[in-house]
């Protein structure tokens, strides 16, 4: 057979037709995952992705959903909105993904949400916290968030500090960008509502990636706060805590610091070791163990330990695990691999996650996701552990 130009041109079409047929015949359900796998944000992108991979492995072994397996198509979003949008488009157009589950930063989430809207493909955002993502003006049927958000985090911290009756002066420190600003402002607004007698005496706004926090710490201490809300996270929290400790900041406020930004996660406690500012209240998405944990969580921890070969396991896999769980349950309930039907199914849906029931609210397509909070004390191995960790349910103070 001679190869004609027409044959060459026709080949991709034929292939496309064949894959199309395979698709219709019940090939895998394709889920596109835009997630940062390079650069600093890979710190969280990598462990988070493992949660999705474990979920899919387990699901496929058990026969999949609607008799079909799930296939993850993973792309590095490089933690920038441009790249996240580019890979999301590419996955929709070239890979024909049926759904998107991913994005990590508060810049990526809203950017990819517009792509989801354009293409009428569901995006479940497992991690971005900015309130903007599902604010009324940005809401559309194809965006769902299973992460906590800045309102929940800021208000939770305010609820904790409001209970310390002798606290009259509070200060905040948060990075000067979307997440930091939103969470610190929400905190300040909520604490004033709960305790009108409390004065917010200082709000420090270092830039993201600040190498030296000592000028900020020193200036803040001079305002003599009784308690501090901090939204330092990841390596930034490590740096801030290491610099604040010798300056006596934690002693000055008698350790009455509530730290958001997952400062209670194993990643942070491992990094700081014995230098952790013991006595502060910190939060975490997940914990290796906590009081009254349900059997499902215990089992999940054992599985994720084995899957990631890490002990204690990272606190991030649960985020993508739960997002994938929501998607699968949505598909099951809708009985179809169709974004419109799954969207309708997801609204108001409650599922049993490893740590208990979670609901995606119908009105803003936001899950009622709280976090674990507790006092950080010196553990048996020298590193900090969370004492009396409690899952703080945000339902009572969500709008």
């Amino acid at each position, binding site marked *: 057979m001679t190869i004609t130009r027409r044959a060459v041109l026709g080949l991709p079409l034929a292939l496309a037709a064949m894959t199309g047929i395979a698709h219709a015949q019940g090939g895998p359900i394709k889920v596109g995952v835009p997630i940062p796998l390079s650069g600093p944000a890979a710190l969280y992108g990598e462990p988070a992705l493992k949660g999705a991979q474990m979920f899919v492995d387990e699901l496929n072994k058990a026969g999949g959903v609607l008799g079909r397996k799930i296939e993850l198509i993973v792309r590095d979003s490089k933690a920038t909105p441009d790249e996240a949008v580019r890979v999301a488009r590419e996955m929709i157009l070239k890979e024909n993904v049926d759904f998107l589950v991913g994005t990590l930063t508060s810049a990526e989430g809203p950017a990819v949400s517009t792509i989801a809207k354009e293409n009428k493909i569901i995006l479940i955002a497992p991690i971005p916290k900015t309130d903007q993502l599902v604010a009324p003006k940005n809401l559309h049927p194809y965006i769902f968030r299973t992460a906590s958000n800045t309102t929940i985090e800021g208000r939770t911290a305010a609820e904790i500090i409001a209970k310390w009756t002798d606290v009259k002066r509070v200060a905040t420190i948060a990075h000067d960008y979307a997440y930091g600003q939103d969470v610190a402002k929400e905190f300040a607004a909520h604490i004033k509502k709960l305790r009108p007698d409390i004065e917010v005496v200082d709000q*420090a706004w270092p830039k993201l990636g600040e190498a030296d926090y000592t000028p900020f710490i020193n200036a803040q*201490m001079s305002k003599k706060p009784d308690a501090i809300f901090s939204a330092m996270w990841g390596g930034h929290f490590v740096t801030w805590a290491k610099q604040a400790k010798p300056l006596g*900041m934690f002693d000055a406020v008698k350790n009455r610091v509530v730290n958001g930004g997952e400062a209670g996660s194993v990643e942070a406690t491992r990094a700081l070791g014995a*230098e952790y500012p013991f006595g502060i209240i910190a939060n975490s998405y997940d914990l290796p163990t906590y009081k009254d944990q349900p059997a499902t969580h215990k089992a999940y921890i054992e599985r994720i330990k084995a899957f990631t070969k890490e002990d204690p396991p990272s606190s991030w896999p649960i985020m993508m695990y739960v997002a994938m769980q929501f998607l699968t349950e949505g598909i099951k309930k809708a009985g179809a691999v169709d974004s419109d039907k799954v969207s309708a199914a997801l609204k108001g849906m409650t599922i049993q996650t490893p740590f208990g029931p979670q609901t995606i609210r119908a009105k803003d397509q936001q899950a009622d996701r709280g976090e674990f909070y507790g006092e950080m004390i010196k553990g048996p191995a020298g590193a900090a552990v969370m004492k009396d960790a409690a899952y703080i349910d945000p339902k009572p103070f969500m709008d």
Partner: protein
Amino acid sequence: MPPLTPTLSPCKGRARGEGGSGGFFVLSQLPDFTLLLGQLRSGLTTAMFLFLIASGLSLIFGVLKIINFAHGSLYMIGAYVAWHLVHYFVGNSFFGFWFAVLVAASVVGVIGALVERLLLRHMYKREELYQLLFTYALVLVFADACKYIWGTQPVSVQRPDVLAGYMTLFDVRLPYYDTMIIFIGLAIAGGFWLLLNRTSFGRIIRAAALDREMLGALGTNVSGLYTGMFVLASFLAGLSGALVTPIKGIAPGLDVDIIIEVFIVVVIGGLGSVWGTLFGSLAYGITLALGILIQPRFSIVAAFILMAVVLVIRPWCRTQLQALAYGVPVTFGFLFLMLGTPAGIIAGLAVIAICALLIFAPQLMRRRASP
């Protein structure tokens, strides 16, 4: 206003009026002396760290005429190697820590030698743009190599017990470690001065900065000198990276975070001068530390205003130091101006006007006097 609880005071501050949440700079009221001293201490620490890193970058630019973007990467490698040694081998006793610091700096020096000998030397005759792109490529390669070797989780080194405490001076806490860094920074500045001005090797370095070909023609091994300079600069980068481990979390991104600040310092210090770099770091540190007292929201802006002002007024000043000396008050003038209050605007305009007069008047008069 609720009364202060004395037990909560971080340092036994003297009695003073309540500043309220608007920041202390209401202009009607002078800032607390203890607070100012504390900020100066912070500014000085910031400055010395930046100087440690920036001195190497400035040296490379001065002699090799290359803008080395990868300098921040060498700093990050120094930090990771030091952590690796402390964590897996020597522990964080005083001697263990110093051993790790010196070995880490040396390892980075060797990496610097390899980079210069094998790669960078082919770039000297290329256009600046290619050199810039090349060192930027190194940033990406090193970042991924670090991620591959040490993973993505943040790590950190504990301060050795001896250095963990602090002393108190005028009611201001001076952590031992920060104080040590200030002295190391000053020692390195002094060492540089001796090297450049009091040794024959220093003379050769200065000559290489002026005219590389002539120096070669006079029989000096210029290529060896270049390697030596690059190794020295890399050693300094590694040293500062290793020294920063006890006060900073080490995680991917350390390289890019620092390089911008260091570039600002090198630019405002006048490219390629060690003294300039020292004063540039001091100006940066002080502007940051005192600037946030006026404008807490614009800590980043202050540094960039400083850079812009220094670059604009530099042609009107005789020395870089003079440009810096005027640049810092002008920056504060702008920060006052941005307060937007009548007092702030008046004070800001006054400071800027006085500085402008001092800078431009002599020049204009000289110009008029000349035929």
